């Protein structure tokens, strides 16, 4: 016989489970997004190069979203893992094998390998300290890549990267046809994984940490272990983004480790909105479109307008894109099963920082 208390507990567990399941469900907007992304491969064959770039940016931003949007770690050093992933896959293709999937794996490992020790440095201190530590790590790696020119080519960049055809059949062509399809599939898989992770109890515990680390540790969440885990995961993501960059461009310059890269990634994410995974994707698209439009107007000074946009964006409030997407999403999907559990719904309202 169950006691009353046990019954109540199991009822609560049931309710929580169904709420979580509902949060993990695909919305129509998401499905539409992916249909469009796939359709772009068929309909816009001339734009595949830029689309590939967008996808890579999106993965970088996705990796930042995992730490910033979910765990609340402000980082300005994601380029560290991105760049190391890029160099790792580039060096692998030169010295060992040009097989692209191996390259991705190695880059993910390399990114995680950098992120794991770094994450321990992030456990102490507040936003500013974290900002400085991530920035510092990226700067050290940038300097190492610059000095070790026998390995990385230094300021001249790493040349002579040759990537084998994907699965032995699909050659990486100069129009980016293979590149776009390949990157898009990788992005999709990574997003699926991120979706799974963030909709899991692990993901919810991250949000708890983000919103109030002290209280989170009071209810028994191992705060430090969770932060280390998510930062390492995000490092692997960033490494994969770097590897995709290497494999589709077949050239690496020191820029992959630069502050600019980290700042761009952060900007992309913020344009799209943090804490719902699609922010990076939407942001990357918007960022490239804005950059494209601006640089065709003022090729040399487009950063000026980018800066102005950024300021306007922050001043008017950066929740706007997210709200827009939410309202569209709400309009598209029919209300299902109104009532019962809405009160329990763990709304993701809090500002993710």
């Amino acid at each position, binding site marked *: 016989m169950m006691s009353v208390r046990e019954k109540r507990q199991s009822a609560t567990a049931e309710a929580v489970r169904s709420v979580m399941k509902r949060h993990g469900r695909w919305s129509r907007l998401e499905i539409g997004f992916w249909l469009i992304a796939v359709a772009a491969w068929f309909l816009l064959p001339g734009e595949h190069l830029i689309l590939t770039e967008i996808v890579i940016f999106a993965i970088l931003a996705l990796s930042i979203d995992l730490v910033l949007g979910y765990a609340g770690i402000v980082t300005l050093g994601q380029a560290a893992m991105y760049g190391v992933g890029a160099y790792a896959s580039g060096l692998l293709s030169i010295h060992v094998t040009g097989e692209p999937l191996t390259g991705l794996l190695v880059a993910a490992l390399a990114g995680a390998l950098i992120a794991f020790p770094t994450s321990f440095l992030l456990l102490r201190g507040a936003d500013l300290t974290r900002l400085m530590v991530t920035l510092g790590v990226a700067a050290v790696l940038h300097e190492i890549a610059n000095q070790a020119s026998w390995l990385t080519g230094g300021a001249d960049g790493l040349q002579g990267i040759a990537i084998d055809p994907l699965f032995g059949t699909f050659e990486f062509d100069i129009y980016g046809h293979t590149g776009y399809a390949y990157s898009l599939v990788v992005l999709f898989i990574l997003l699926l994984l991120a979706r799974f992770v963030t909709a899991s109890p692990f993901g919810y515990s991250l949000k708890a940490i983000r919103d109030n680390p002290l209280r989170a540790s009071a209810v028994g969440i191992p705060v430090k272990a969770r932060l280390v885990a998510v930062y390492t995961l995000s490092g692997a993501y960033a490494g994969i983004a770097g590897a995709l960059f290497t494999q589709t461009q077949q050239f690496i310059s020191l820029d992959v480790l630069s502050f600019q890269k980290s700042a761009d990634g952060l900007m992309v994410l913020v344009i799209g909105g943090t804490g719902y995974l699609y922010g990076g994707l939407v942001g990357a698209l918007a960022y490239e479109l804005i950059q494209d439009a601006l640089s065709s107007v003022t090729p040399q000074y487009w950063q000026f307008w980018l*800066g102005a946009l*950024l300021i306007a964006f922050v001043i008017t409030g950066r929740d706007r894109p997210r709200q827009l997407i939410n309202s569209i999403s709400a309009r598209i999907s029919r209300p299902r099963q109104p009532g019962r559990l809405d009160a329990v719904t763990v709304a993701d309202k809090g500002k993710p920082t």
Partner: protein
Amino acid sequence: MLTLLFDGLAYGMLLFVLSCGLAVTLGLMNFINLAHGAFAMAGGYVTVLMTNRWGVPFLLTLPIAFMVTAIAGGLLEKALYCRLYDKTHLDQVLFSIGLVFIAVAGVDYLMGSQQQILNLPDFLRGRFTVGGIGIGVYRAFLVVVCGLLAIALQLILAHTRFGSRLRASVDDRRVARGVGIRVNVIFAVTFAIGSGLAGLGGALGAEILGLDPTFPLKFMVYFLIVVSVGGTSSMTGPLVASILLGVADVLGKYYVPSLGGFIIYIVLVAVLVLRPHGLFSRAA
């Protein structure tokens, strides 16, 4: 060796003047302002323009550089910064990065991307020798000017009514407002003075640090290091931190050039890991 130490000292003093404004905004007001270098750059360009194109004496351009950037800083504070005091750190970071982009591209457009060279007056050039140490006249000048500034700042903060009002506003904004301190005005004035000091530092440093449109990005890390390593409890922390940083940087680049670029970052990460609130902070 001693010459190098002196160079490092001069460099460190310069860094102090450049970053003490940031120590106040970031350290005391808790506003992450990555655009601090933009004000320094503005000061540098004011000085270079006036001495090279219009022939204004160098020494006269220094106070002008201070005034111009202070006014610019004050206006920006009133227009934009003051809206961001209560926002999250992420917002502040993004906002100030945006400002840096604008400054870099704007200066590039107005002045061109080449390095600007400052024509120093003759009496500040050359070297002299004291007790076997070769000292550059300009470096000695820097040490004196920056040292005086540091002392003046510490006195203002610690012993004037304005200083105590500022400290009160920082410690508890609401209570300070409650006892009749006009917190907004205090913050605006402080911000303007901080920007002005950055401008002055940029003007003084145009000769040593070099001046081109990427200045705010290149030196952003240095400023942040000074503040985060130095802590914020007084002006002494940033001063010691900037001198340490200057000496370490100069010596490092001279003796182990291949490691030169790393040293500051390694020191930074090490200090932050061991003392997350800076070397000289009050216990948090």
